[in-house]
């Protein structure tokens, strides 16, 4: 038996060298001889690059081709979903090991308080464990676009379970969330425009501690990016009242996964949904919307006139700069709407509108061609006079030539 094993060993070594793997793998473990698929997958992973070996996770003896000997020395398969996260944590919660990679070591702790972690702890092993999102042997780093945890791939990774109706049914969780997200301004920015700074699922729900935010926390989560809007919201009457009434703050109007900007007609019905269509508040909503809308229209109109001015070879740099200022005021108005008070909104939209009106007015003055047209009329008067004189000359010439 021994010579055969020995020759097998030699042959496999030779093959590895021939396959161009070089001396690095020669020194490595022999597990791949019997588990080639796992080995191939593993070799692509971040762990393989950093010198993690099979036995670092699985234990056992990697330096023998004797099947039995290899699977002794505390070998473990890691197939138990309930305990596997703890095994990842052996290294990933180790400050000394993670420090060089600047990786956080609280991931396991955070996971344990997440909905996923709590379910697994209860014995519900259908809930996600580390390998469900990161992969098993072929774990890539988060920044690798091929990784299932790369920001643009997160929605499809979550979708693997969260769009599966049979899987979500026992928990009473909706399955439209990922589709809803993909249709929103956030989803389009991330998936269609490729803006990796746009929020994905984990931006709001947390990464390892994935949990739906509760009432009172929604405004903090949205406010992480929409800071001005959050400030305005808290300052206004909605801030406290909605939390007290148990309404999820931002999501009550904007929805959660299917976030959309309001279309003009929605404002009336949305305010009316809580306050009543005929209410004072609904009127206020309409009024604010009109203010923002008319300022936006004015700016757009002025922009078109600036284009006309450009075609008429006027200098437009100053007009463009001023319109940019008006647009900034308009941008300021949008967060201010969340104060649900008219004064601040009125103030900034009035500024935006008056700048646009001023620009429009001045360009109209410059584009006015009345003087040129009057000049043209005068010019034609002279042209006709000249023609009359020339024709008279010609007649006299003809009359003079005829008798001869």
């Amino acid at each position, binding site marked *: 038996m021994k010579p055969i094993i020995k020759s097998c060993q030699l042959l496999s070594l030779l093959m590895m060298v021939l396959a161009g793997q070089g001396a690095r793998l020669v020194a490595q473990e022999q597990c791949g001889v019997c588990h080639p698929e796992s080995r191939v997958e593993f070799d692509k992973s971040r762990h393989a690059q950093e010198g993690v070996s099979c036995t670092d996770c699985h234990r056992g003896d990697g330096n023998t081709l004797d099947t039995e000997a290899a699977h002794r020395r505390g070998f473990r398969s890691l197939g138990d979903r309930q305990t596997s996260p703890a095994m990842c944590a052996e290294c990933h919660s180790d400050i000394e090991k993670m420090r060089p990679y600047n990786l956080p070591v609280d991931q396991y702790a955070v996971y344990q308080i997440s909905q996923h972690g709590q379910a697994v702890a209860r014995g519900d092993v259908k809930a996600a464990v580390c390998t469900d999102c990161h992969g098993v042997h072929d774990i890539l780093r988060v920044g690798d676009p091929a990784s299932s945890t790369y920001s643009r791939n997160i929605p499809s990774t979550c979708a693997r379970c969260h769009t599966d109706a049979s899987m979500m049914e026992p928990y009473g969780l909706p399955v439209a969330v990922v589709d809803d997200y993909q249709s929103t301004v956030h989803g389009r920015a991330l998936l269609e425009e490729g803006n990796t700074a746009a929020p994905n699922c984990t931006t709001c729900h947390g990464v390892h501690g994935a949990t739906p935010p509760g009432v009172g926390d929604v405004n903090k989560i949205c406010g992480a990016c929409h800071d001005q809007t959050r400030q305005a919201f808290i300052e206004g009457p909605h801030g406290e009242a909605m939390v007290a009434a148990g309404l999820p703050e931002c999501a009550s109007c904007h929805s959660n996964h299917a976030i959309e900007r309001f279309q003009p007609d929605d404002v009336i019905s949305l305010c009316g949904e809580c306050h009543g269509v005929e209410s004072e508040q609904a009127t206020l909503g309409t009024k604010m919307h009109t203010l923002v809308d008319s300022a936006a229209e004015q700016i757009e109109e002025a922009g078109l006139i600036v284009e006309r001015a450009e075609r*008429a070879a006027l200098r437009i740099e100053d007009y463009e700069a001023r319109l940019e200022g008006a647009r900034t005021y308009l941008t300021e108005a949008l967060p201010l709407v969340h104060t649900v008070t008219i004064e601040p909104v009125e103030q900034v939209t009035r500024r935006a509108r008056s700048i646009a009106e001023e620009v429009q007015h001045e360009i109209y003055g410059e584009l006015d061609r009345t003087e040129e047209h009057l000049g043209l009329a005068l*010019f034609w008067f002279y042209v006709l006079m000249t*023609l009359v004189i020339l024709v008279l000359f010609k007649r006299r010439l003809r009359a003079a030539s005829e008798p001869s």
Partner: protein
Amino acid sequence: MNEDKPTVLDWFSRRLNLTEIFSLLTSYGIYYGELDSRKPLKEALAEAEKRPVALYSRWPRILSLIAVVLIGLELLTGGLLALYYLPTPDSAHPSLGTILRDVHFGDFVHQMHFWGAQLLILVLILRVIRYFLGSVYKAPRELIWVFGALLLLAAFHLDLTGRALPMTDQGYWSSVRALEIVGAVPIYGPLVHFLVGGDGAFITELTLIRFYVLHVAVLPIVAVTLIYLYFSTIRRVGLGDAKHGNEVQSQRVLRSQLLTMAIVLTLVFGLLVTLAVIAPKPFEREADPFATVPGVGPPWYLLAPFGFLEWMPSFVPQWIAGLILFLAFTLFLAVPFLDRSTKGSMGRWVALTIGLLIMVAWLVFTIYGGRVA
């Protein structure tokens, strides 16, 4: 009485051959008769005035005169624009901005130059059509046709090169479209592409400076030479056409001619000023060679070949379509040598029918090209 007292004219005529100088002017249509340059100017003019010739400044012969006036106007306005225009890709557009905004009457001169060019091409097209209908190409007037056709071609090229010069997005892309059409023509196309230093897809600084040289030096000289040659053949073969022959319509031609020319000049000037004021060509944005502006077709007079190339099914190689265009143009130049039919004969009717069919096809392809562009 005062015959002994020398006038300024006398002073000059003793030192210069004024008759010869004036006869040079006659080569450009002011007066097309021959002057005896051995005689003093006054004498030569008096003699010329007595010589009976057909009236030149009557419709439709006046088209050539208008063309001369317009070429003169283009040379004048073009010269003024050249004082401020900078022919490099980076400064071409800003320099046009300077002309339009800061230079006194710069906008006006630019508009006159643009509208003058459009009018010139229109007049030259009408002129060729009228030669055909009036059969002003029958022996010995073949060269009138050839020079007329070549002058039209020169004007096309002048306008094409001029369009690209300000590096505006419309001008840039319409030049690229035009270069694509030219590029489809075998031999001539590749030659043009080589000469302008681009492959038709881009206009580089080499293209621009070569366009500039063509536009301000080479092509104007070609155009002026063609006009000179045109009036030279007129002086040799007379103005008559198949209908009127060389019949004399009036005497005292010279003064009448000068007055008519003044009237034409005034009217053309009036028309151009009106167009420049009521329909100014807009100041387009600066061209970005990496951003195709959608919906920019070739110039209006090239819409027909453009439409033809677009209309050709895609399995026909482009050089075949180009070859057809090339042959069509060669046939167009060779009309006087192809149609030797006499007035009222069967052959004349055939020629007229074919000519009208070609004109209709041109119109149809122009409309089609306008739709596609």
